[in-house]
């Protein structure tokens, strides 16, 4: 187990280097960031040369990448074009997105699992079929349409919530965006739980528990639910990284100043430092989440052994 974890951690190094290099190159091929800095006119050549030198853009790409990575390892993520330290941007953006992700995950767990259990226990009944169809519809509509519709209906027509999130992003304002962000995953969690419950409901140990004369709710909570939640937990574990990176659309619709906003802004301004820095952190989160899920497997399931 320990050796396995170490090996995986070591394998993460090339993946990390590869992914950051890829992002670095992608942002690089987007073109010349200095071109957009002087508004509807060209920077005068002298200033342009100075800016290029200051941002290190006059060097070959591999050298820029090497310099950048060297800085990253000392914790220096560089400076954005508007003079802001990327690390400062991260400090303001990540807490917001983490909170949003957390709200989304709570929705996934609470609503997704509850619906899934109900459906799993009432397979084939109308409630099962209709929720099943509903989850499909949620998956079929693009998130930005869901988001815009939700904003219009709950925020403008019914005035139940504020249509956008203020910059401090308090939890209550994040409820609607969190639900929108969670919607697709929520549908998956529901379906996953349903299947898992349905399969386990026929398992021997459940039959034994029922035969022992345990009350129904105890069988469900103590025996059935616990065992059925393994795939759900692992799904949610890996979903965290996806939610954080996928929040670009949701954050745009609800004007949330989180990671998605900074990334979008950084991309529009071709700000290599911001984009690579944020994606780097996201990739780390993703890799760690993956590793954690794999290790969790071994802990949860005695049949899996790592060498």
């Amino acid at each position, binding site marked *: 187990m320990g050796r396995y974890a170490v090996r995986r951690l070591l394998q993460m190094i090339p993946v990390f280097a590869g992914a950051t290099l890829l992002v670095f190159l992608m942002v690089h091929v987007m073109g*010349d960031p200095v071109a957009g800095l002087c508004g509807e*006119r060209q920077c*005068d050549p002298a*200033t342009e040369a100075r800016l290029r030198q200051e941002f290190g853009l006059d060097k070959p790409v591999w050298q820029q990448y090497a310099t950048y990575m060297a800085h990253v390892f000392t914790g220096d993520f560089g400076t954005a074009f508007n003079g802001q330290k990327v690390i400062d941007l991260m400090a303001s953006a990540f807490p917001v997105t983490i909170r949003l992700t957390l709200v989304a995950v709570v929705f996934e767990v609470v609503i997704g699992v509850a619906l899934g259990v109900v459906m799993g226990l009432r397979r084939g009944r109308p409630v099962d079929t209709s929720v099943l169809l509903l989850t499909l519809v949620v998956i079929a509509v693009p998130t930005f349409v869901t988001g815009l519709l939700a904003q219009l209906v709950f925020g403008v027509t019914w005035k139940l919530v504020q249509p956008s999130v203020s910059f401090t992003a308090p939890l209550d304002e994040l409820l609607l965006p969190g639900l929108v962000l969670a919607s697709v995953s929520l549908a998956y969690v529901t379906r996953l739980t349903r*299947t898992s419950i349905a399969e386990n409901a026929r398992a021997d140990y459940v039959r034994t528990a029922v035969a022992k004369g345990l009350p129904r709710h105890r069988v469900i909570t103590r025996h059935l639910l616990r065992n059925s939640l393994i795939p759900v937990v692992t799904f949610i574990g890996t979903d965290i990284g996806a939610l954080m990176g996928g929040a670009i659309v949701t954050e*745009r619709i609800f004007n949330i100043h989180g990671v998605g906003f900074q990334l979008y802004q950084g991309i529009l301004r071709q700000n290599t430092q911001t984009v690579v820095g944020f994606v780097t952190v996201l990739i780390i989160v993703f890799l760690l989440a993956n590793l954690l899920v794999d290790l969790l497997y071994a802990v949860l399931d005695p049949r899996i052994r790592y060498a």
Partner: protein
Amino acid sequence: MRPAAHAKRTARAVAVPLAIGLAVVPATTACGGGAAPAGGPDGVLSSSWGDPQNPLEPANTNEVQGGKVLDMIFRGLKRYDPKTGEARDVLAERIETTDSTHFTVTVRDGWTFSNGEKVTAKSFVDAWNYGAHLRNNQKNAYFFEYIEGYDKVHPVSGSPTADTLSGLRVTGPRTFTVTLSQRFSTWPDTLGYAAFAPLPRAFFDHHADWLAKPVGNGPYAVLNYTRGAQMSLRTWKGYPGSDKARNGGVDLRVYTDNNTAYTDLVSGNLDLLDDVPAAQLKNAKADLEGRYINSPAGILQTLSFPYYDPAWNTPGAVKVRTGLSMAINRRQITETIFRSTRTPATDWTSPVLGTDGGHKAGLCGKACHFDPAAAKKLVAEGGGIPGGRLTITYNADTGSHKQWVDAVCNSVNNTLGNDRSCVGSPVGTFADFRDRIGRKKLTGPFRAGWQMDYPLIQNFLQPLYYTNASSNDGKWSDARFDRLVNEANADPDMATAVRTFQRAEAVVRDQMAAIPLWYQNGSAGYAARLSHVELNPFSVPVYDRIEVA
């Protein structure tokens, strides 16, 4: 694809997400809250904003979002009247010259920065020297290019050979002299631009702190600034000027998407939106019950052409361009897409200049008039569209450009009777769009919006059409035009200078150097608790006059 193999003991599985949840929750508790909205002279209003692209230094800010802040926290020698656009003295007691080359500036007494430091002649000279010097990477350095010694502190290539502009000299606590490298009779009128603002010592001595919380001498002072999210400005009680703010302050909120800002405005979550997106205009009047402004601004939208492409630089192409101009139904587009927040252009300036300032409605004549039959004939006579298809390039990330480009193309297609003769070509980012222009990679017309720096006809012509001028993106060149502009610049008499500029503008028309589309208005919507909301000719709200109920 297979499910996880199911284990029999799982108590820890459920505990894990809870543990993760608990670990992150503390980060969330410290936020939220906010004071109840107050009215009257202490009332604070919220206003939409965009994240400034550059550090908020006066000579480094070249877009409207940063300019908005500078206009609130700085006052310079002159200021453009929010209504008429006329340059009026603010900190300037007098600016004297006898030869349009040597100027003596006297700064008014009694002005201080909001940190208590006195505004002196040195505050200006230091600021300008900073703005001009190559070392400081100021993107608006070219504003100082007419001052003698600019080529020493900001050489076209190589290192600077001087630290300060030789044309600037402090002659007393409140006086300094300026020597220009050429005659420029209307130079004092350019001094209302933000780049010419004075700067306190703190700017130079504690630069990073200053950037985190800029200090100026305007009616507002920065209370706090959360990068990329919000800036809170509060009225500076000690402001010595006559344009004291009539409200308690302004919270500028960053919006990624103006449609969200509009939604916020309509549902009472935002007080002022100074750029109502085109898609919302249809219902804006009804939504806002009249709390909607649509006033002219010094912005002209045109289609420019790549003259470095030989196909566009022929006598026949002049006819094609004129034909295309006549194929665009400007009235219908401005009324349908923009709901009359644009006015069909009939010259290459802006109505905010006024007729005395050089605006001449109808100068474009028939060439700007929608006439499908004549348009089709002219395009055919000119040999058809070079390359067979008109591709209009624009940037898709800002503004409502896609809507009007598609509409222009539909208008051209309908006129020419071919549904594929014109297509819009969006470029993902503004930076990439500018990059393609800079590298001369375009083969067809491209969007060109010009927002004036200062309300002079010179500013609508010289930077855009003079040979190799800084914003002459299409690289158009015409010796006659250049000669007329030189003549006009040297003319000390305003009225004849304007007439000479208009003769230069006629050259632009005869060659159809760029197709003028429409004059852009500023459009703003505001909440019921605000009154006296206006936009200045730069389409920025006049914040100090707004009253909060």
